């Protein structure tokens, strides 16, 4: 374990707190990097240059930012030239952002939420939610620590190490699992929320909604969001019934 690794991992849990349009996650990355740069304190000029570089413009998926934090800190300690470290961070930002979005925001999160929705619809109740949140929090912590260690171990060779780790191969699998779980949750969920709508069967409203959503995603012109459409439809119902 590298000195300051634990504190850096904890700081990565709030890496986006000072997010701005100017530096995006930059200040958060600097904040998380400081404990790792402690060995440079003996050379104040080097330390300040490293702290300055660490706080520059940067953005990636928050769960995977630790990979860049670790790699850049390792490079700083190894005495790699500043320009090379800046290029390393620039090269990592896009791929780590895209990978994290696909893996977590479009994969793991919908999969976990769909599993919870399914469980709740079958009567599992609040304990299912508590269990899901606990397991997810463990995954979140594990990924943060794993990413930081991967970066610290690899330094400038982090891209190759990331590829060798197999994380990128998980994107497709997690995506398929998310698709399956979201699909599985729908019918039980709508049955659980079923409300008789006059002469129409309970599944008429969700079925119409599902078809509308698929068509809206397929058409090329801009369609209002489901939230906007729902609020407008509710306004129409209130106006109609208040005549």
């Amino acid at each position, binding site marked *: 374990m590298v000195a300051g690794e634990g504190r850096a991992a904890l700081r990565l*849990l*709030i890496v*986006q*707190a*000072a*997010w*701005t349009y*100017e530096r995006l996650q930059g*200040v*958060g990355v*600097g*904040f998380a990097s*400081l404990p790792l740069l402690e060995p440079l304190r003996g050379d104040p000029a080097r330390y300040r240059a490293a*702290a*300055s570089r660490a706080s520059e413009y940067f953005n990636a998926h928050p769960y995977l930012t630790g990979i860049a934090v670790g790699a850049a800190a390792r490079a700083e300690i190894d005495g790699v030239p500043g320009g090379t470290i800046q290029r390393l961070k620039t090269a990592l930002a896009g791929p780590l952002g895209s990978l994290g*979005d696909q893996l977590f*925001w479009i994969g793991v999160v*919908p999969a976990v*939420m769909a599993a919870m*929705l399914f469980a*709740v619809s*079958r009567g599992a*109740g*609040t304990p299912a*939610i*508590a269990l*899901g*949140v606990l397991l*997810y*929090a463990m995954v*979140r912590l594990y990924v943060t620590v794993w990413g930081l260690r991967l970066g610290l171990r690899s330094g400038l060779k982090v891209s190759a190490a990331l590829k060798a780790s197999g994380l990128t191969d998980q994107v497709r699998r997690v*995506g398929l*699992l998310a*698709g*399956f779980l979201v*699909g*599985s949750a*729908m*019918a039980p969920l709508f*049955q659980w*929320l079923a*409300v*008789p709508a006059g002469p129409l069967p309970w599944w008429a*409203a*969700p079925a119409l*909604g*599902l*078809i*509308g*959503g*698929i068509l809206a*995603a397929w058409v090329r012109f801009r369609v209002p*969001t*489901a*939230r906007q459409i*729902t609020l407008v*439809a509710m306004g129409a*119902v*209130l106006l109609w*019934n208040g005549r």
Partner: protein
Amino acid sequence: MTIEWLVVAGLIGWATLAGLDLASLLQALLSRPLVVGAGAGWLLGDPENGLRVGALLEMFALDVVPVGSSGYPDFGAATVAAVMVAGTGPWQETLGIATGFGLGLASLAGATLPMTRRLNARTLRANAERLTGGDDQAVERVHWAGLGHDAVRSLVVGVVAVAVAYAVRRAGWVATGDTGIALTVVAIGGAGWAVAHGATTSARSGHRWRWALAGVGTGLAVVLTW
């Protein structure tokens, strides 16, 4: 219809934590409507109601990808308020209006995120020289200030949302009867729209579509047999 002040304080605290989890702290599902709804329902002594509201709003949230610079709704405090509103009558009649209430509040709460970022930017500019000079204390100061800004934002959003919901509960301004049921039907249809839109947008490959369809088949089998 009245809620104890201790419970109100708990709801505001829960809403604040959910607001922080959205972007600044952890990002570990504590801002997801289903999780927030479960917690709010538990605090209000009506977990089933919290789960129903949370589940319906969660389907809308599945259509949102919270990428840094894009605008996105904040469902945390909105879900807490929606659960409070839903507890005013039979769920079939109040679920729809509560969902509408939650959707509206989520959009308004989401609009406060850029304000926090502008405040962060102001702090950043005030410390720009020190940051460029590698002053570690400036880095820490700017970062903690950012967390403070979001904590205040989340608290204010939580207080406003809970106060509005509390007033709605006390005044009994919740549509019930046939109108309430019609609103619930609309909310369920809208939730179906949101999930289908989110799933279609995310399913870039035919494989994911096939797996989603297999899932739909599995779900239907569960409904028919279990």
